[in-house]
């Protein structure tokens, strides 16, 4: 049996807002196999974004056990989590989060620059660009791209360093139906072609059903 690429046990995360303690995750346990497409579905405030941030190394857990590709996040320093974000995980956000002053190609290039990735597979990358259908939009800045195009550029950026895990947080949340379906098609297709693990957060059960091998539901900081 292959080891889990994501292995979470009894994960807690508590935020402190002044003197108020806000428990966001209350004992989450979850395992994900390499290459699996997992959808996490839940209402606002269920803790799915917090789980996403912890898996992505954007914030440390308060307690519990989190192993990502064999690395224990609880033991990891801020610098260690930074290195993990460079190569192990790639993010796709609801609001696209492209750098507005750079072109699409430069937005993708800067991810490689940050990771110090000079030996990337050009052919594979060109194939991804072709699959995403943004080959003729690479020299445009975000303001000149449609929402769907921006999200496809963001997906290309997330894949620029060939991460083992793709984290997509409500990737269709800011898109119309046609563009949403196009993005879901791309995510599903890339997961099948590249075999990388994909976690998608969504509140849309139909989107989860369409893409995911497995769906987990969250409510009140727990998997239900």
């Amino acid at each position: 049996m292959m080891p889990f690429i994501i292995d979470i046990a009894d994960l807690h995360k508590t935020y402190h807002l002044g003197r108020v303690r806000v428990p966001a995750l209350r004992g989450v346990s979850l395992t994900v196999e390499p290459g699996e497409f997992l959808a996490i579905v839940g209402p606002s405030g269920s803790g799915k974004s917090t789980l996403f941030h912890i898996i992505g190394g954007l914030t440390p857990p308060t307690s519990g056990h989190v192993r990502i590709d064999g690395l224990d996040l609880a033991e990891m320093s801020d610098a260690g989590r930074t290195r993990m974000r460079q190569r192990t995980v790639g993010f796709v956000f609801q609001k696209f989060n492209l750098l507005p002053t750079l072109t699409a190609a430069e937005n993708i290039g800067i991810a490689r620059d940050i990771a110090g990735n000079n030996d990337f597979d050009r052919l594979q990358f060109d194939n991804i660009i072709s699959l995403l259908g943004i080959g003729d939009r690479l020299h445009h800045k975000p303001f000149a791209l449609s929402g769907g195009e921006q999200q496809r550029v963001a997906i290309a950026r997330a894949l620029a360093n060939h991460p083992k895990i793709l984290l997509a947080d409500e990737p269709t949340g800011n898109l119309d139906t046609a563009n949403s379906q196009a993005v879901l098609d791309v995510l599903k297709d890339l997961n099948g072609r590249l075999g990388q693990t994909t976690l998608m957060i969504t509140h849309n059960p139909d989107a989860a059903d369409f893409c995911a091998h497995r769906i987990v539901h969250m409510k009140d900081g727990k998997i239900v």
Partner: protein
Amino acid sequence: MVNRLVLQNLLHRPIRTLLSVVAVGVEITLILTVVGLSQGLLEEASRRNRGVGADIIVRPSTTQAAMGLSSAELSEKLVEKFASMPRVSMATGTTVYMLTNYLTTITGVDMDAFSRMSGGLKYLAGGPFEQPFDAVIDQVWAEQRKLQVGQSMELWNRQFRVAGIVEPGKLSRIFIPLTTMQDLLGWRGKLGQIYIKLKNPDETPAVIDELKALLPGYNIFSMAEFTSLFSINNIAGLSTFIRVIIGLAVTIGFLVVMLSMYTAILERTREIGILKSLGASQFYIIGIVIRETFLLALLGIGVGILFSFGAQGIIQHRFPILVVSLHRDWWFYAGLIAVGGAMLGALYPAVRAARQDPIAALAYE
């Protein structure tokens, strides 16, 4: 790629970039102009002293600094005594009065002796003194005060006729007869300094030794040594003044850059979050801010050098007696100072950006 991001960041907010560049430019201009003015005036004074044609200068023992104005305390009889020394070709004495409002001096000269020593003044209009209350002025002073031959100029509540206008470069901008100045200022029989010309200039060190033995405690210099003392470090308070101006200029640059980068960081909070989500380290973020600041400073230095040429032109057009000397070595020093100030100003915003929490930054609207 990061350089592209830095460049695009600067182009994204052209007004802020322009203001920052201009602020650094003003800082550079301030430094170059103040230093250039100080050096220019000193170099001009040095050049005019070299134009006297003497080999040795003797000044009273009470003159505080080599560059200080001599009070008229030397006996006029010393001129004859020096002239009678076997290795001396000739000697002549002068008195000097500072026109503090104009940063220039009036010199009382024995025009015949001074002309023999210096090779003579070159008259552009008029001629030498004819009467006790005649003055000879140089072209720069004539332009500054809009004076022509035959017109009057007031000195010590007396009217002096402009007898001649000469080429600048020899000793002073305003000459009046030595005896007139001695009478008006109560210095009869006294001199401020005595210039000595030798038969053989190679004997200057030997004659200086002889004079020092004869007049212990007097300030006696070769003209080469004396003119080399015309430097910023030898003028009491000048180097302090320049340091204060440089300090003010650096403070301006520091504050403007700090404010500019701080607002840039605030505005780009979300972008910093994006970079962090891509795995940008704290050093990477600091590097972006530092590179951006360095580029601003470099542009500011270029603008400042151009501005300083503009300032030089304006000053010398409006005040011909002021000489602004823009030395290239000071382009480098001023640039170094500006870059240092800008980097200090960028440090806090850079560290603040680097320490931003990525989740909070990504949520920033």
